[in-house]
């Protein structure tokens, strides 16, 4: 042991003579990281990315990104003698003739799915706990951009093998690009090197998939992590935790072991999935041929919402007086809506900060119930997304449940406008209910489930005081004041500058915080505590004075 420490010490001092590594280690080896299961979601995303880099590099050894036509002559008998692109043939070789090739492909694909899933859930965590608030707005924007980029990256990877399933997806994307007003046709020609499908797309997509996007992602992930390190991690409220400290375990050794170990867990599970569960069996789909299609074809889940939007959109198309075609039916769901959604996503921290006018740093996470409007918006967004994903599989649903596609699409067209607002209102109410309960708990303690019968026959429930831990959590709530709109003109009759924006802000502020249940003031807590003591003492006195029997305590299990 001591030998290890001595040797490590010597190595550090040798390194220190070349670069100031000791200062770095001193500052960071014992850096504190708070612990919570939801903090592992980002880790899963990070580790999946590393797994993707690693397995992806191996795939490049055998994969041939070429659309040159070849005749297949490998070990998968059903396709022998069939013409296909070199890309598809090499993906078949990877699956059937390279030892471990199928495993690498399947690990790569499972890691891509885990990556997206972890990113989405990670984003939920950040959103619902307000972790995007100052000073972490930039990291929210970086994260949101990565989400978008990974979506494109996943689609690119999925399209590389040039099988029939993914080829139809590419055909759809080409159609969406063509629908962009003014430049659409040129864009499509530029991307495909001419008409669809051409011969250039797969090689171009390959560079995009293995070089351009991973490079950008690597830079963004690096920045994301540096900022996390610099800001220090947020923490959940609790005893001993405040906005100016960070409570948890040291980086070395606990986090090195836990987070490092967790990398191996994620990698191990992904590898087991690759061995045990088949994913994207490209050989079953056949090579891409533009006049063929597989029925019931589905994209990977994270693309499903786009497909759902395309399906739900009414078939509006204009031809203007110059004979130009405006394909609203494709352009709106294929480009406008995704653009708006991503824009709102990236802008959210700034919108909320504008409404609250809050310029302080926030390192203590907010409980979702304490910001009912934000939580409502989040749930509404999930419902919106969910409806689209479901609509993206409406053909499968129609077949499974024997429904008509027309009904399903009409259902989606209506639900997409009604369900998210309903979800918003319901969530908001639910949160306010939880706030009310928190307030009750602070003032009167928790309902114990024990019923007390008073001498005069009245039943009351005994309330037990809540623990310090719980108080610390509940008291972490911050009550934001509702911002009032300024008067239209000041005392000199001069119009208030930016009146319109300020009125909007007041309106939004009321929507956010107007209904919030105020946390009890210290005086209220004191009064409540006093009151209950008095009442209790009073009763006991009465009992003794009357010489009556002590009332029976009816517990939940005493009958």
């Amino acid at each position, binding site marked *: 042991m001591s030998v290890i420490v001595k040797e490590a010490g010597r190595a550090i001092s040798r390194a220190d003579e070349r670069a100031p590594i000791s200062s770095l280690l001193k500052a960071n080896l014992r*850096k504190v990281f708070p612990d919570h299961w939801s903090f592992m979601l980002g880790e899963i995303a990070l580790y999946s990315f590393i797994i993707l880099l690693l397995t992806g590099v191996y795939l490049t050894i055998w994969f041939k990104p070429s659309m040159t036509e070849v005749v297949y002559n490998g070990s998968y008998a059903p396709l022998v003698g069939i013409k296909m692109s070199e890309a598809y043939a090499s993906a078949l070789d990877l699956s059937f003739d*390279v*030892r*471990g090739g199928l495993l690498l492909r*399947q690990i790569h694909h499972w890691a891509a799915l885990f990556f997206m899933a972890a990113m989405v859930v990670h984003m939920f965590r950040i959103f619902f706990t307000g972790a995007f608030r100052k000073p972490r707005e930039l990291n929210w924007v970086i994260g949101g951009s990565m989400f978008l980029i990974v979506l494109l990256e996943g689609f690119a990877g999925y399209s590389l093998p040039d099988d029939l399933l993914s080829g139809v997806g590419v*055909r*759809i994307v080409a*159609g969406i690009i*063509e*629908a962009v007003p003014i*430049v659409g*046709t040129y864009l*499509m*020609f*530029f991307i495909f090197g*001419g*008409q669809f*499908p*051409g011969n*250039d797309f797969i090689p171009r997509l390959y560079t995009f998939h293995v070089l351009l996007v991973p490079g950008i992602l690597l830079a963004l992930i690096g920045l994301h992590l540096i900022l996390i390190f*610099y800001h220090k991690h947020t923490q959940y*409220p609790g005893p*001993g*935790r*405040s*906005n100016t400290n960070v409570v*948890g*375990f040291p980086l070395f*050794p*606990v986090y090195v*072991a*836990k987070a*490092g*170990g*967790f990398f*191996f867990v994620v*990698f191990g*599970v*992904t*590898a087991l999935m*690759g*061995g*045990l569960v088949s994913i994207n069996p490209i050989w079953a789909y056949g090579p891409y041929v*533009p*006049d063929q*299609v597989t029925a019931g074809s589905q994209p990977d889940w994270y693309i499903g919402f786009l497909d759902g939007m*395309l399906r739900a959109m*009414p078939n509006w*198309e204009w031809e203007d007086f110059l004979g130009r*075609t405006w*394909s609203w039916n494709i352009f709106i769901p294929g480009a406008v809506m995704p653009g708006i959604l991503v824009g709102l996503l990236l802008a959210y921290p700034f919108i909320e900060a504008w409404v609250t006018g809050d310029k302080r*740093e926030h390192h203590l996470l907010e409980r979702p119930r304490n910001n009912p409007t934000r939580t409502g918006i989040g749930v509404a967004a999930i419902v919106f997304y969910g409806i689209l994903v479901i609509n993206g599989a409406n*053909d499968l649903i129609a077949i499974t449940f024997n429904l008509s596609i027309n009904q399903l699409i009409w259902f989606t067209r209506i639900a997409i406008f009604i369900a998210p607002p309903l979800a918003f209102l319901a969530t908001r109410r639910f949160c306010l209910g939880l706030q009310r309960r928190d307030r009750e708990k*602070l003032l009167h303690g928790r309902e114990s489930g024990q019923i007390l019968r008073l001498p005069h026959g009245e039943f009351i429930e005994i309330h037990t005081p809540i623990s310090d831990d719980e*108080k610390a959590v509940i008291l972490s709530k911050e009550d934001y004041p509702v911002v009032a709109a300024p008067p239209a003109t000041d005392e000199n009759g001069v119009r208030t500058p930016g009146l319109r924006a300020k009125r909007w802000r007041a309106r939004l502020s009321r929507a956010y915080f107007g209904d919030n249940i105020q946390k009890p*003031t210290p005086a209220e*807590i*004191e009064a409540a*505590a006093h009151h209950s*003591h008095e009442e209790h003492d009073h009763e006991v006195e009465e009992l003794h004075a009357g010489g009556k029997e002590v009332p029976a305590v009816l517990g939940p299990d005493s009958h």
Partner: protein
Amino acid sequence: MSEKTSTELATAEHHGEEPLFPLPPHRHRLTDTDPRAARRAERQVATMFVLSALLVVAFVAVYVGVDVRSTLNLGPFGVVNASNLLLGLTMGGAILLIGIGAIHWAKKLMSDEEIVDERHPLGSPKEDQDAALEAFQTGVAESGFVERKIVRRSLIGALLLFPVPLIVFLKDMGPTDVNVLRETLWKKGDRILVDITLQPLRPEDLNVGTLVSASPEGLNEVQELEHTQNARAKASIILVRMKPEEIRSQQGDNWDYQGILAFSKICTHVGCPIALYQQRTHHLLCPCHQSTFDLSDSGNVVFGPAARQMPQLPITVDEEGYLVAADGFQQPVGPSFWERG
């Protein structure tokens, strides 16, 4: 909890600068107090690491010993590739065990006492901010960026233009002749070849109610010549036959041949090929987004996101009695585009 404390703490109506309640005291684990439990945990961790190493050996053995093509019958799970399964199990198991071992080690044997770090306001100290601003101002002054207007403006101009070559390069990413989207291989007299068999077709070969996918003669030759599937992506068609009295309308007079109608196979929405035909309603249903076209009514859209009718190809028979195109398509096939008109 005494009432006094809670009152006090609730007064801390600030921004959480002080913790509301003290950190709860550290609770010892069994492994902290019982050396036997600690030794047991140590053994468990070491066992996982040893197993992991053994699985790596097993992985190599599988790699060498199991043929890539060999299969295993797993009963209800079907027949699986043995090499993939065993490689995945050994590799995944080996990696997973390192992870579980390390986490077990951290949880059972490393200190689990929470420690506290203070946060400091993130901004630089005021004097650093001032110094930075001053350094910047000195730099600006020394460069003369403000006073020397011509230099400044010409520099901005040059920098704005500097990316132009990088954009111009992109011009040759693809051709820009939009008209290719209006053309297909079909022209008057082209025989209609059934897909797969590539045989020409006589009217009698088609029964009422059937749908056949087809393409123009010469398509394969063009494909060989161009080395692309571009021609196929536009030229492929479907043929359906219905009773002539069932045809309510079509895109041109007598474009059918004795109730046989030819339509483009490429969906006018975003271009999926379509071959789902409902004989009773004469509806053609796209599998991608469920646009539905009524082939007995000029191929018009009856449902779904597609906005345009399926282009119809006029057909007839040649002297030998084979079905041929009576003309090319009279409108562009496939998805709409800006210049389509």
